[in-house]
């Protein structure tokens, strides 16, 4: 803390004098004014912090919303691909079904050819039919799994929509908090101005008064420890060079005209 100037010192002492007499207008002591200014400073800092925090929240929510939007786009793209695949699997199932009919017809044709000649055809027919049945079942299972994935993706999309709505609400609330903080900050500035007019003090002076009060208390405590141990004349002679200017200042001898 830089050393106070002469003007500051004079103003400080004026306030100290007034503080010692108590204010005739509102009865508030300089110490109370100092506490009031300190509270005002704390409130101003808290309001500024809350406003900045609200802006940071709004910024994070905006980023999160962008991420959610990108995720939703990807989920929709995957869902569309799953739908395409499901259609393709449907065509594969159709093809296997047709292949199975071809195998059945081969077996029927073999039956017309006679038992001996149709044996090889029958074997091939049975094998083709068995494989096409397996392929058809596998394709159906894949198609069912894809349908389940599509259903899951729909739920993911629904969840993402809800997340987006919640993010929008948080952003609105953050904007509201930010606005309220700005209002509160303006109100605190107004309160500070009115406080300055009402008390004639300012935060720096009030802080200096608080520090001077602490020092004065310490001085009184130190003098108390000397009481009875050291002759009073010795104490007075030792402290007089220091205390006389102080006493003069407190009595108002150095008050500037006007």
């Amino acid at each position, binding site marked *: 803390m830089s050393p106070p100037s002469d003007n500051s010192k004079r103003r400080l002492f004026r306030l100290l004098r007034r503080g010692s007499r108590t204010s005739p207008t509102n009865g508030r002591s300089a110490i109370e004014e100092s506490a009031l200014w300190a509270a005002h400073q704390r409130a101003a800092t808290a309001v500024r912090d809350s406003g900045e925090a609200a802006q940071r929240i709004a910024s994070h929510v905006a980023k999160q919303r962008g991420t959610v939007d990108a995720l939703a786009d990807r989920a929709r793209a995957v869902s569309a691909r799953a739908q395409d695949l499901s259609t393709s699997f*449907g*065509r594969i*199932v*159709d093809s296997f*079904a*047709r292949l199975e*009919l071809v195998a*059945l*017809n*081969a*077996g*029927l044709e*073999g*039956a*017309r050819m*006679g*038992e*001996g000649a*149709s044996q090889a055809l*029958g074997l091939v*027919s*049975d094998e083709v039919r068995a494989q096409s049945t397996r392929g058809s079942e596998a394709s*159906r299972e894949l*198609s*069912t799994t894809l349908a389940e994935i599509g259903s899951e993706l729909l739920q993911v999309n629904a969840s993402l929509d809800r997340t987006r709505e919640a993010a929008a609400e948080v952003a609105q609330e953050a904007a509201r908090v930010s606005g309220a903080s700005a209002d509160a900050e303006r109100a605190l500035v107004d309160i500070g101005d009115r406080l300055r007019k009402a008390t004639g003090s300012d935060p720096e002076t009030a802080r200096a008064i608080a520090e001077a009060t602490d020092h004065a208390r310490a001085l009184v405590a130190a003098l108390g420890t000397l009481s009875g141990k050291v002759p009073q004349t010795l104490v007075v002679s030792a402290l007089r060079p220091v205390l006389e200017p102080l006493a003069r200042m407190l009595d108002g001898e150095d008050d500037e005209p006007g």
Partner: protein
Amino acid sequence: MSADADTTATATMTGGVVFRVGDAQFFLPATIAAKVLPMPGVARVPGAPVDLVGVALVEGEMVPVVAIGELDGRGSRRPPPTQRSRADNRPMLVCTYLGERVGLVGLEIVATGFFEATDPEHVEHGGAPAPLFDVGEVVARLREGRWAV
């Protein structure tokens, strides 16, 4: 039962097709069963008997399509609507009887080839007997209807 059904191989083995209608299993010899096709587009015939699903164009020829079982039943193997693809893969068994072709639907093809004939009216498949299916009765029923085909 079909008197025209003839055995195509030895006395104990008969060539043809075994199919299922509902829970029952039937057999048609290869001389009657011509081929298995996917269900074609069918034109409804107003006022036709219930069994006559309609007529369909099969290899350039109009063929009556007759339901011998439930079209959407278990035997038809028709997938549920959610799993149904654009193509209708329900099988239609095309038969030739006395020079006329008829398509049978509402059935599930079990097997084709040679089957052991336990007697002239039955074959055995999968440890269960399969009686000869009477196509003649189906055709006669159609002929008796007002809208004969």
